[in-house]
């Protein structure tokens, strides 16, 4: 090629490489520019392809014509040896001012052509789009589906970050949990009662006051008794009209409060518990209590204690299990001893 300050490069003197994209279209590209891509370079050197239209080099599937144009612009600029680092950097900064879709396509295409510097450049741009953004923003940018459960979203993060956003999510989650807990309490209480509380003595004790004709029978009686006990301890007074009321009232109290109360109750003397209940204008209960044998009383106390302990230790895991069964199949190991020993 004629060299000289005023040399005009005649078109037929430059050599071209022919490239074919997956949509079938064929382009011709200046040799220096195309050879900047390692994959094309290798194809030319190893297979001799690309020298004419019929023997165009097939580019990988991820390279579409529009993206190929961008890549060739990049190569055209950078293959010129005389440029300063500053010039190259300025070009790069302008080059990656693209939307997320184009950047992702460009990264993918550059990777398939093995153009590592361009992969690094676009990856850095994508990283900048992710850094410091909230998950919602990132999902918006890249059209990611929001298909994780709350639980899954928090799980690894809980250990790793103390991000205030995570703490907020935790709090919201705790509130949701509580609501679910309250809704499932009926079922839960029944299940727990069956497994944990020895039925017989309670049954006997309650039999004579079980006058509501509740079809649940024993269970209802137990529930009533339990609820009443709870109500006494927490100081809630209401008539013994319907089971539903009894069920509902304790629900309005935060569970922690309930548990705490039961705990404190067990730490007091047995008589104290019933003395408290004595102050309640709940005559049926009082009468009932006064008619207990000491032996029955002891049984009752033990059950209260047991139940409190179990509430404290088992309820959170049971709750998780309930929720997880509702949302996804994921076993949560819950260890329960026969006598409900605390873990």
């Amino acid at each position: 090629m004629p060299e000289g300050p005023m040399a005009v490069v005649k078109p037929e003197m430059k050599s071209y490489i022919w490239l074919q994209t997956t949509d079938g279209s064929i382009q011709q590209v200046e040799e220096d520019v195309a050879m900047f891509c390692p994959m094309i370079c290798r194809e030319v050197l190893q297979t001799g392809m690309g020298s004419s239209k019929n023997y165009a080099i097939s580019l990988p599937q991820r390279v579409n014509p529009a993206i190929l144009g961008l890549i060739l612009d990049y190569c055209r600029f950078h293959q010129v040896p005389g440029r300063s680092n500053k010039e190259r950097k300025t070009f790069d900064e302008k080059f990656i001012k693209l939307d997320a879709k184009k950047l992702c396509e460009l990264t993918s295409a550059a990777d398939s052509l093995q153009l590592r510097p361009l992969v690094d450049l676009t990856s850095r741009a994508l990283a900048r789009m992710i850094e410091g953004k909230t998950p919602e923003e990132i999902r918006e940018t890249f059209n990611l589906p929001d298909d994780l459960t709350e639980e899954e979203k928090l799980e690894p993060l809980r250990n790793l970050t103390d991000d205030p956003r995570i703490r907020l999510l935790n709090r919201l989650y705790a509130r949701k949990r509580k609501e679910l807990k309250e809704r499932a309490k009926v079922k839960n209480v029944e299940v727990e009662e069956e497994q944990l509380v020895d039925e017989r003595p309670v049954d006997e004790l309650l039999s004579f006051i079980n006058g509501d004709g509740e079809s649940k029978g024993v269970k209802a009686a137990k529930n009533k008794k339990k609820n009443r006990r709870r109500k006494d301890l927490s100081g809630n007074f209401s008539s013994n009209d319907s089971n539903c009321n009894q069920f509902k009232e304790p629900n309005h109290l935060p569970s922690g409060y309930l548990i705490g109360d039961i705990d404190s109750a067990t730490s007091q003397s047995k008589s104290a518990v019933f003395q408290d209940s004595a102050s309640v204008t709940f005559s049926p209960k009082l009468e009932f209590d006064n008619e207990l044998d000491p032996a029955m009383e002891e049984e009752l106390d033990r059950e209260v204690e047991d139940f409190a302990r179990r509430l404290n230790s088992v309820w959170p895991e049971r709750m998780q299990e309930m929720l997880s069964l509702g949302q996804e199949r994921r076993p949560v190991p819950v260890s329960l001893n026969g006598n409900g020993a605390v873990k």
Partner: protein
Amino acid sequence: MDNDLREDLISDLPQSIIETILTKLPIRDAVRTCALSSKWRYKWTTITDLVFNDKCVSSCYDRPILENKLVSFITHFLFLHDGPIHKFALSTSFLQSSPDIDQWLLFLSRRGIRNLSIELGEGEWFRAPSCLFTCSKLTHLELVRCELDPPPKFKGFLCLKYLNLQQILMPPDDIEYLISSCPLLESLTLSYFDGLELALHAPNLKYLILEGEFMDICLENTPRLIAVSIAMYITDDIAEHFEQSSSCNFDKFLGGVPCLERLVGQIYFTKYLSIGIDSGSTPIKYHHLKIIELYQVNFEDLNEVLAVLRLIVSSPNLKELHIAGPSNTAAAVVGSDLGFWEKECPTDYMFDQLKTVKITEVSGTLHEMGFIKFLLEHAPVLKVMTITPSAYVTEGRLSMLVNLVRFRRASAQAEVIFVQEQP
């Protein structure tokens, strides 16, 4: 068309690209991607380059809490990580030595760690556990403020190419052994060592950076050395040692570096080089030496001048020369050996490649001016000579200029720039 717009743009890119992107994020953001979507839940767990620093945890004023948070973050991260770990870098000003760090190192040694960099806070130096020496795949090792005690059966890091030790407590013999037992070592940096006598055996070593109070440096076996940068501090002990030394440091240091391309000597290096030097030329030529930078050269010490002369005269392909005078003394006009320059400089010697010369901290002393004169007369292709007077010299500048103007120049294109404003 609508479907196209909602199409997930990024999750199906090849894992190598995803990892590249995640590696370019601060590690905390990388972990947060687990909450994006089900595909992204575990993408972060396979990244192979981990960089931890104080920004991994939200800041708070209570230091023990911050330490605990950082330890907890790293421990949990490693526990949840899946796959090999190639790079682990920890740089923190809060963490001190702790059993957790030892456990992390044990964990890393089992994951094929290749690039390890640990810089902990000031205070009690980190004592490296023995599992560090079982990381057989290490290619990069960087330790700051660390106590190293290699176990007796340690045979060296056979893959190590890059070693950077800064403020390390290690028996001197062990340092030499460590260096010589890494056969592939290409780059070595030792900073802030005290009173070290170093004999380097590193047949593949290309880049050497030393900074500290070295008693003695002997490049015994470093034939491939390309670039050297030495900053030598001198204490009274070392000065005494220098006075009593009988060997020729020039030969000891520059005797076995035929491939040297770049030499940078700072602080007292030229003084070190000058010890034991004698007149007469050296047979060794540094054919590849293109750039020489010597700082704090004391032109009043004729031995130092001799060392500089010998160095530049033995470098036929020298392109760039930068000499700086001592930065802390005012002009000392000593009426010493005036015939020095005619005696010592080969009159027919020409610097055939020397294009750029920078002389800074010039006080205008006799020998400094003699040196400049010598250069100007013997550099036929010189393009630029920049002379920057020392900040301490205010009155002598005019006489400096007067002398400069008088000097003959071998190069017709030479520009001599006298810098007035201090940069």
